[in-house]
């Protein structure tokens, strides 16, 4: 079965984020970028599906600039078969992103489109379900694992206080969260092979963003904390502070 996985290039989760002089962008100096963590779970899920069914093609799709090639190569090195880079502006208007992706997906008849639940930069948690709505497909979000039998995918979905088992008719969109299957690391052989895999680059059909970023700020620093004391002897004082000063108990 063919699967398309939408992936995004984002700052590494270790990155320290500083706002630059413009006040509307991050200071890119020293920042390393990587495949967004949940997208890595989605790639892993697609590869497992392909391996399990013994056939099918895994295609990666991203909207970004040419630096996203590196991210796509990483996914290809994990085992994806080919990649498409739509070049265009990425904004904080997730619907604009979804439209560019949905326009490209019209040309693909893969029964499954996989997304991450959220991208680790804008944290919007919206592009997957929006693409589903635009493409007229059903969608399940927060999927930790799934199996496909015939034309139905059975998903484990995380909800408050537990999980659900959800069936969805294919073709469908699934938005993946962290699950039991750790994303694989690319082996040297995979990295070599990835260099020869097809990576198509073409301009995105972008629309104008209707959400405008007017400012970016670092979070207010937390007030200086204090070490109440050492060991069990400090507990009495901690409980007093929590009750009287913090009003938290």
């Amino acid at each position: 079965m063919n699967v398309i996985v939408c992936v995004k290039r984002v700052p590494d989760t270790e990155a320290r984020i500083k706002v630059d002089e413009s006040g509307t962008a991050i200071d890119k100096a020293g920042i390393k970028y990587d495949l967004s963590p949940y997208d890595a779970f989605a790639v892993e899920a697609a590869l497992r599906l392909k391996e399990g069914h013994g056939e099918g093609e895994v295609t990666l799709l991203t909207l970004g600039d040419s630096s996203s090639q590196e991210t796509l190569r990483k996914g290809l090195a994990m085992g994806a078969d080919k990649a498409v880079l739509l070049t265009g502006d990425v904004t904080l208007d997730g619907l604009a992103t979804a439209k560019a992706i949905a326009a490209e997906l019209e040309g693909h008849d893969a029964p499954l489109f996989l997304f991450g639940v959220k991208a680790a930069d804008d944290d919007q948690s919206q592009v997957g379900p929006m693409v589903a709505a635009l493409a007229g497909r059903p969608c399940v979000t927060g999927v930790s694992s799934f199996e496909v039998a015939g034309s139905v995918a059975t998903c484990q979905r995380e909800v408050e206080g537990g999980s659900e088992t959800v069936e969805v008719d294919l073709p469908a969109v699934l938005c993946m969260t962290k699950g039991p299957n750790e994303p694989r690391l690319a082996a040297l052989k995979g990295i070599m092979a990835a260099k020869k895999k097809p990576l198509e680059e073409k301009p995105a059909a972008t629309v104008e963003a209707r959400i405008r970023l007017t400012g970016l700020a670092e979070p207010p620093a937390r007030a200086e904390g204090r070490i109440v004391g050492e060991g069990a002897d400090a507990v009495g004082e901690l409980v007093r502070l929590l009750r009287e000063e913090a009003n938290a108990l």
Partner: protein
Amino acid sequence: MANVLAFAEQRDGQIGSAGREAISAAATLAGSLGGSAHALVLGAPGLSAGAEGLGTVGAETVFVGEHEALGEYNPEGYAGIVADRVREGGYSAVVFTASTLGKDLAPRVAALLDVPLATDVTSLKADGGTVTVVRPVFSGKAFATLEIDATPAMVSIRPNVFAVGEHSAAGTVDAFTPEVDASAWRVRVVGRNSASEGQVDVSEASIVVSGGRGMKGPEHWGLLEGLRDAIGSGVALGASRAVVDAGWRPHGEQVGQTGKTVAPKLYFAVGISGAIQHLAGMRTAKTIVAINRDADAPIFSVADYGIVGDLFEVVPKLSEEIAALKAAD
């Protein structure tokens, strides 16, 4: 018209803090836009009985869509009904809660209506008719201010951030029976497994007790349960990724960049080093307590109160003293 619609989610027929916060945020926004707040609730028949009470949190009119098939959330069932109400009401803004349900529903409704969506906002205002929000980005390592150039302005609010207001008037209930054809739904919930029967979810709790690798093994979680029970109700257990990956705790408890984001009024980090990905999920907690034997652990840099010491000595004593404090209340 400058009215604002809040989608108020129910669970088991009850409208909890998620729905109430959305209504109150909508009421505040409607106030600055010069309109009123309406609420939309969907669920099984019987819901409308208590719905006029939502007036006291800010809803002037409460639309209650009742249908047997809507008792539990289904994306296919809900999205179209919400979109229809938004179209009919001609709203200036629509407010959802960024709960599991809201994260699933709001983007779909936005796409159906062809309007953008700002999710998980921590501040919501109207400046001369333009809706402006602040929302965390980069897992809370920065905050973005955004202007929404579309009508309705569609947002989802971060749980536990917006206060539930108090209004004097009761709401007017407008009950309706939506047309629902559940047989056409392409998404079906076929099973529910409750990880922790009767316990609050970590993302919704007002107090969180989290354990990390310093706990040494899953057999020691009784210590944290003891602390949770000593504090009382509304307390949830959380975990670092290290302990979830080790299989000591379920993923639903993971706090951080690849887990849940929490904003409780009190957060205990027990045997957690404070890696940047963990801090991303809990740094907006009102008060943070860290218990760690390493005085240089990064968790102390965000903690309001820290105890340097062996958690196996500190936590039992802490549970004991809190229990004594509560008993004296």
